């Protein structure tokens, strides 16, 4: 008698009512459409990357087929594409990485330890923290200008002008903020109860930091800094500004270490940049081959970081 007043017709049984409620839904087209849109975005990004890599790889194949790999990796730059290699570039990049490893990593970690563990939380520290974060976002080419002004011009007597030293110090400044941020994050991830436990048995601040905080943060610090080295490895713009040679050059055979470090240099990304502008078509293939070498090296560096992170990952 009340059936007409009810918004829905009364079902015959409870089972039927539940069945209707649970199974009667239409397919949710809006979610499906959204899912497809997301998938399309992903495929587009991936597709472009795969296309690029395939293109470069196909171009590079002749170089690796016709020349022996060792020769390509060790010969110096040359205007003759049949002889041109990336030996000097690899050496230059390696020396720059040594600069970054020896200077940027210790200074960056020390700065992070100070900011996280020692500095009081006041306006001054907050300004420093914000500034470091902003510096990490400054385009590298701006640091290149700084490098010219300071290392190439101002400190010419020590660096030898546009030299490996100038390039190395410029790269150190480029990556320093990133090292500080990565290390600070890793230190912050060490829980306070661990610090309290150390203080609770009568350890000094330094003992707690040295024996506990830094050791537990080291995997995170290493992962961050290795990724940073990977980034520095591919950096081109600031090095072009502080004098990485974009052609070929020869080093005096009897030069000492300091003379070599104060002398001309080139790096892998710089060589890629300069070869890609050469008119002769053989250089296209060489460029592609050099890009493959750069990609493989960066992949190795990032892989190392991932292995370290997984191996020493710690749960609290």
């Amino acid at each position, binding site marked *: 008698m009340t059936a007409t007043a009810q918004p829905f017709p009364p079902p015959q049984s409870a089972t039927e009512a539940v069945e209707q409620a649970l199974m009667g839904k239409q397919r949710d087209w809006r979610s499906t459409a959204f899912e497809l849109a997301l998938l399309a975005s992903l495929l587009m990004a991936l597709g472009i990357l795969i296309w690029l890599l395939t293109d470069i790889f196909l171009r590079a194949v002749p170089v690796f087929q016709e020349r022996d790999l060792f020769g390509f990796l060790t010969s110096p730059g040359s205007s003759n594409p049949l002889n041109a290699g990336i030996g000097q570039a690899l050496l230059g990049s390696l020396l720059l990485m040594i600069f970054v490893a020896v200077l940027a990593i210790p200074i960056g970690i020390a700065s992070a330890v100070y900011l996280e563990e020692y500095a*009081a*939380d006041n306006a001054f520290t907050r300004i420093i923290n914000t500034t470091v974060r902003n510096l990490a976002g400054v385009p590298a080419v701006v640091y290149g200008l700084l490098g010219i002004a300071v290392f190439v011009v101002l400190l010419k007597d020590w660096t030898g002008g546009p030299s490996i030293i100038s390039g190395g110090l410029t790269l150190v400044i480029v990556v320093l903020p990133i090292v500080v941020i990565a290390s600070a994050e890793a230190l912050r991830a060490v*829980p306070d*109860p*661990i*610090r*309290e*436990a*150390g*203080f*609770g*048995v*009568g*350890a*000094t601040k330094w*003992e707690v930091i040295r*024996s*506990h905080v830094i050791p*537990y943060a080291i995997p995170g610090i290493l992962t961050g800094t290795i990724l940073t080295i990977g980034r520095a490895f591919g950096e081109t713009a600031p090095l072009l500004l502080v004098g990485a040679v974009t052609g070929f050059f020869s080093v005096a055979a009897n030069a000492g270490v300091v003379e070599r470090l104060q002398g001309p240099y080139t790096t892998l990304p710089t060589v890629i940049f300069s070869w890609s502008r050469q008119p002769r078509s053989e250089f296209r293939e060489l460029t592609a081959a050099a890009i493959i070498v750069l990609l493989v090296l960066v992949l190795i560096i990032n892989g190392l970081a991932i292995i370290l992170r997984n191996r020493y990952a*710690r749960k609290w």
Partner: protein
Amino acid sequence: MQSETPTMYDADETDAQAPPVRDPSTAMDGRGATVNVGAVTAARPEAPAPAEAPESVFEVRELSAYYSSFRAIRDVELDIPRNRITAFIGPSGCGKSTLLRCFNRMNDLIPGAHIKGRVNYHGVDLYDSRVDAVEVRRRIGMVFQKPNPFPKSIYDNVAFGPRVAGYRGSMDELVESSLKRAAIWDEVKDKLKQPGTALSGGQQQRLCIARTIAVQPDVILMDEPCSALDPVATLKIEELMFELRTDYTILIVTHNMQQAARASDETVFLTMGDDRAGYLVEKGPTAEIFTNPRNQLTEDYVSGRFG
């Protein structure tokens, strides 16, 4: 540090005291002295709670604790007797943990935290500017709410404290005696090289207690040591506290009133005032607090009518 203490002593408070049975200054004094491991366990007879009034380890006078401008506890007056278990009970947020952390200057680590008033430890004002907080924490150890073993081996967990204190005796013996004292030796003796974090929660907490007693402190502060443990593990910790009472003065913060009732000699009840600052309502022998409290607030709390 103890060599300068005579100037810090308050004459009228300490002159009458008999020399303590196990003077805190003789146990692994400072950094570098060697100490007899056996002395830890052999120092005292097993007799629990002697009848005569025991001497005070701490005398708290007009103590207020602040986090920046917020007053967390106000005007606490309290004496902590030696070789007893003193329990601090009270509703959440009444400042029990804050008060406990005043006893070993753990609050120093929190930016903005400071106190007014005095906390005397064997007559020495712990907050005197000449007092080294690191030495304070060596003598007044702490066990935390959540078991916090270092992510290192069980052995290294125990050995860290003595190492930084400059202990030069046999570390193996000290680790073994500390783990035995914490009633966990039998469970871990075959896996001392395994990480302390791989143990169960209750075992971790006993490891933390072993770590605390390895530096041979005078007092052990326990901040809700059983709140993360199951009833079996809780019982083990309580039995252990009773054991340790013969050698140490124990202060324990607990949320669990049954725990305070069954595992403490003295009970201090705190509650929160209208200004959200905790204050001391009543203190006394545990049996008295739980069976015959003088204050209505205490009675309401221990009978479960509030909090």
